[in-house]
């Protein structure tokens, strides 16, 4: 079952020129339940738009989204979204940010506080529950953002370059943290990144998108056993294949010349 993306198209009207800009072009894919799927593609190709459409923040121009075989109903089906910029509420503490989703769902105060404290403990945020976002490091802020999404028990978690603005050490730590979490909670994750190394390390499947309008051009199954060694021959081989597929989609002539 899982999430079925059927013939998804999305176009915008350019505000200045009034031209129709096609962003997604007939995207089909079936993300099976509990899988970790990464999406890579040239920057600005429409990966973010795809996530936004799945999250219900944009209406698709055409096509359908099915969850467990039914059309997604955003009133009932929770689709989590984690942004690169964390998007924490600056006037809320760690605890208050994490429990926000439950607050919206009108879960009683003690209950949501207890649930949030569980996440704070398991996310290594103990001692920071009453701090405000600006007092936390980038890595911690992103943990808060992930906890805030997971606490609502989403059917699918969409992540839009969540580790894009972190230094490589923190990034590696959070990748391992996310994997452990995913294996424990068995949640379906769709993960957008421009970092092929990250995609190979984390995913069951990697999807390569074309430049705008985004079409799905290649898919790769990453079968290397977990926990993965980033430097293993298998990982290197996958990386090479994905990079080659991406290279074919590069729009920048300067970059193509150099390589």
């Amino acid at each position, binding site marked *: 079952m899982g999430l079925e993306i059927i013939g998804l198209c999305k176009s915008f009207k350019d*505000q200045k020129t009034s031209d129709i800009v096609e962003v997604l072009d007939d995207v089909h894919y079936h993300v099976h339940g509990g899988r970790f799927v990464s999406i890579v593609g040239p*920057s600005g190709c429409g990966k973010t738009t795809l996530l936004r459409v799945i*999250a*219900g923040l944009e*209406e698709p121009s055409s096509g359908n989204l099915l969850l467990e075989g039914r059309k997604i109903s955003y009133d009932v089906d929770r689709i989590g979204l984690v942004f690169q*910029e964390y*998007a924490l509420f600056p006037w809320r503490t760690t605890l208050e940010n994490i429990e*926000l989703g439950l607050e*919206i769902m009108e879960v009683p105060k003690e209950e949501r506080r207890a649930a949030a404290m569980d996440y704070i403990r398991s996310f290594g945020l103990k001692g920071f529950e009453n701090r405000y976002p600006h007092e936390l490091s980038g890595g911690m802020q992103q943990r808060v953002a992930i906890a805030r999404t997971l606490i609502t028990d989403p059917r699918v978690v969409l992540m839009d370059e969540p580790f894009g603005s972190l230094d490589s050490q923190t990034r590696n730590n959070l990748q391992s943290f996310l994997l452990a979490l995913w294996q424990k909670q068995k949640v379906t994750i769709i993960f957008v990144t421009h970092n092929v190394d990250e995609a190979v390390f984390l995913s069951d499947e990697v999807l390569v998108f074309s430049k705008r309008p985004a079409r799905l051009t290649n898919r790769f199954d990453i079968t290397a056993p977990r926990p993965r060694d980033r430097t293993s021959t298998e990982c290197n081989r996958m990386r090479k294949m994905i990079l080659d597929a991406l290279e074919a989609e590069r729009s920048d002539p300067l970059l193509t010349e150099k390589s």
Partner: protein
Amino acid sequence: MTGTVIEIGPYQLILALVFILLAGGASLYHGLRLEKDLLVGTIRTFAQLFLLGYVLKFVFRLNSVWPVLAVFLFMIVFATRIIRSRIKEKQVAFFWPMLVSMVISYALAAILITGVVIGAKPWWKPQYFIPLGGMLIGNSMNAVAISLDRLLSDLKERRQEVEMMLCLGADYHEASKDMVKNAMRAGMIPAINSMMAVGVVFIPGMMTGQILAGADPLVAIRYQIVVMVMIVGATAMLSFLGVRIVCKLCFGPAQQLLLRPEKHGKRD
């Protein structure tokens, strides 16, 4: 009203233009290049007010409900157009919903004030209905424009916050609660400030006019109080209603925020 008004004859009117010459001279001296605008502005002031004078005279003489309502409606349509032009955000088509709600709220307020509070008979008596209606519209129009501008710019600026709330299961109402509140407040503050300053910092135009026309200051202030209270009330009603309506228009049927950032695609 008793007393006599000193009439302003054509010569005095031309004499008053000395002020414009002063302003024009200053503009030339400082190189502001406002002379042309000053000229156009002066001509428009003369033309528009003379036209208004004749229209009012005509409507007063007809003394029938329809021309009064026509003038009223005309003022509201223009006010809506001015609001539309003041708001930089052009993605939301709010002209018609705004016009309808302005007609309804202004009509209610104006009828209440002339028919019930002042007790003019009939309620549309043009000498009361048109100037009071005009003041109502002119004063609250700014507030509505401020509110809507604030709402739209806030929603756009804090788009990510709104969308985060939507993703966490909030409806559009909940997700935009903060922005709606701020917009309503922003619209109300000037009206409340003017209630604070009236009579101390400035003498309102209507009262001035009545006193010049020979009215007892104590009668004039009562009119002024009624008018100010009416303006604050109508402003509140209209900016709250307007903010709600426009906020609803910013979201699609499936509760997506429709306002796009300036350039879409990659966020910065």
